[in-house]
């Protein structure tokens, strides 16, 4: 059953941002035949634009569906998203302005450009680029899953090939204006997206608790439902589970700004001070995320029953809001998916162009050639992600989870590289490989749960697999650097 009012509002808002996406090409116009213009918005964005851009980029539609979904399904552990998104910013405040400054001075477009420059190692550059690509592809696919959830919740369901028509249409539109406008398109759309999300959440946290009899009742009801589950959960973390909660928060925070789409957002800034200020202002989005997380409990208290936890929030909105506002809220989520999907595909395209095409296929391309390749790659990446999303979405979910584990393994080369060249590039490469393998093995052994119970003697400590792999990675990088330098292994042989 299609909700006509909600669908009309939804489609109207979606059409409006499409116009905006194409119009963006002319905004603070530059020569879009240059990669720095197309792929980094000309590196001219000020504090406000970067705030919207990074906010729209880091807090994705998938996050807005998955975090409350996890609270709905598993209780307090889902709230790790809040300490995670608090701890990002002190880290970003320290590291990212430095990265911006070094990349700007050398004209780097991607994080792998930076790694190549610092260590003179093509192998390490390729490892960094591939890690970013592997982590980004499923993440783009999950943005599509976010749109799919919303479209299905509107009651739109075709059969056969038609079933996928709305999502394919949305994606073709997205691909077209990303192609023509580059990073300017998501930057402009982010204003609308964030406006709608703030509005939706502000209304939700006032209206829904009023309808459900206040926060005290919501938490009590959520606790009752969670405790009665076949696998009982709770609204507070048990002491034994805190190691998992804390390492998930810390490991995710360490990894976030190393994702290609984060780096692209950072490098689009006009100067390093824009990044420092945003480390102060971006936590406003974390407040939003915290409020959204609690929607999972509100869904429990409202008696929403669904096997697929992704539908908890859309179903809650349908139960609580009038149709026209359901349209607004769903448009907020769907448009929210477009912004990160666009930025991620641009970031992935930049990586392929700079660190694979330019390095291995065609050294010294002209500016126009480079930007043309990047535009085509952004299409390729998106259709790859679309294929992912139309298949079994569980793959995308599992891979996105692994993506966080993987990206964290590029931390030593990147973040230590900001300050020192002490580490031996081959040691970093070997340590990266061990970290990737160990992290993947741990997550797979737990059937794609990110928490690994490590047994040391008679004690078992459950913690984020990415953190265990990261610690191993660091230890090996340091140890092998000492060994390689002692045995005079050349540092730049692979340059």
């Amino acid at each position, binding site marked *: 059953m299609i909700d006509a009012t909600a669908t009309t509002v939804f489609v109207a808002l979606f059409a409006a941002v499409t116009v905006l996406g194409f119009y963006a090409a002319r905004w603070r116009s530059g020569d879009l035949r240059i990669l720095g213009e197309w792929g980094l918005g000309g590196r001219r964005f000020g504090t406000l634009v970067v705030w919207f851009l990074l906010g729209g980029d880091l807090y994705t539609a998938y996050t807005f569906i998955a975090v409350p979904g996890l609270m709905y399904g598993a209780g*307090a552990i889902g*709230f790790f998203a*809040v*300490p995670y998104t*608090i*701890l990002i*910013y*002190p880290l970003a*405040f*320290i590291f990212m*302005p*430095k990265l*911006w*400054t070094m990349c700007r001075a050398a004209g780097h477009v991607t994080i792998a450009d930076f790694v190549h420059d610092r260590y003179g190692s093509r192998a390490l550059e390729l490892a960094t680029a591939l890690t970013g690509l592997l982590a980004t592809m499923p993440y783009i696919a999950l943005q599509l899953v976010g749109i799919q959830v919303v479209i299905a919740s509107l009651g739109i369901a075709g059969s056969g090939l038609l079933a996928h028509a709305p999502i394919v249409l949305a994606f073709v539109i997205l691909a077209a204006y990303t192609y023509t406008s580059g990073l300017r398109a998501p930057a402009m759309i982010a204003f609308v997206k964030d406006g709608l999300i703030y509005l939706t959440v502000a209304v939700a946290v006032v209206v829904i608790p009023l309808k459900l009899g*206040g*926060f*005290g*009742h*919501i*938490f009590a009801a959520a606790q009752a439902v969670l405790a009665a589950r076949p696998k009982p959960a709770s*609204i*507070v*973390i*048990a*002491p034994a589970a*805190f190691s998992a909660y*804390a390492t998930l*928060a*810390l490991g995710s925070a360490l990894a976030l700004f190393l994702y290609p789409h984060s780096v692209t957002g950072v490098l689009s800034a006009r100067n*390093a*001070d824009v990044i*420092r*200020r945003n*480390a*102060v*202002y971006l*936590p*406003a989005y*974390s*407040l939003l995320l*915290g409020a959204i997380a*609690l929607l999972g409990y509100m869904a429990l208290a409202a008696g929403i029953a669904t096997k697929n936890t992704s539908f908890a929030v859309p179903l809650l909105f349908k139960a609580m809001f009038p149709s026209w506002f359901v349209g607004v809220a769903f448009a907020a989520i769907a448009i929210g998916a477009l912004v990160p999907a666009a930025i991620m595909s641009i970031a992935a395209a930049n990586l392929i162009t700079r660190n694979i095409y330019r390095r291995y296929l065609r050294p010294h391309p002209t500016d126009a050639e480079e930007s043309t390749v990047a535009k085509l790659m952004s299409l390729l990446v998106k259709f790859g992600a679309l294929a992912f999303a139309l298949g079994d979405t569980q793959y995308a979910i599992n891979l996105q989870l692994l993506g966080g584990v993987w990206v964290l393994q590029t931390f030593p080369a990147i973040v230590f590289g900001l300050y020192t060249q002490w580490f031996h590039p081959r040691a970093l490469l070997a340590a990266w490989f061990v970290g990737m393998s160990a992290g993947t093995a741990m997550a797979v052994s737990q059937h794609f749960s990110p928490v690994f119970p490590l047994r040391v003697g008679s004690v078992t400590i459950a913690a984020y697999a990415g953190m265990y792999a990261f610690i191993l990675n660091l230890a090996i990088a340091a140890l092998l650097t000492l060994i390689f330098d002692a045995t005079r292994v050349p540092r730049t042989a692979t340059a």
Partner: protein
Amino acid sequence: MSRYLALSLPFIALLVPFYLRLEPSLYGIPFFYWYQFVWLALSAAITWFVYRATGASPR
């Protein structure tokens, strides 16, 4: 440099299990939740303080 040490406070506050309790609750919101919301604001305030104290230009 020492001013940057202030940025470690949110890490201590959130990565040490000070807050695994339901009481005291605030407007019906358990301690576990409002404590983390408070640190969200405090962390931003601390970052702002460090920003102001270390000058607007990057190091």
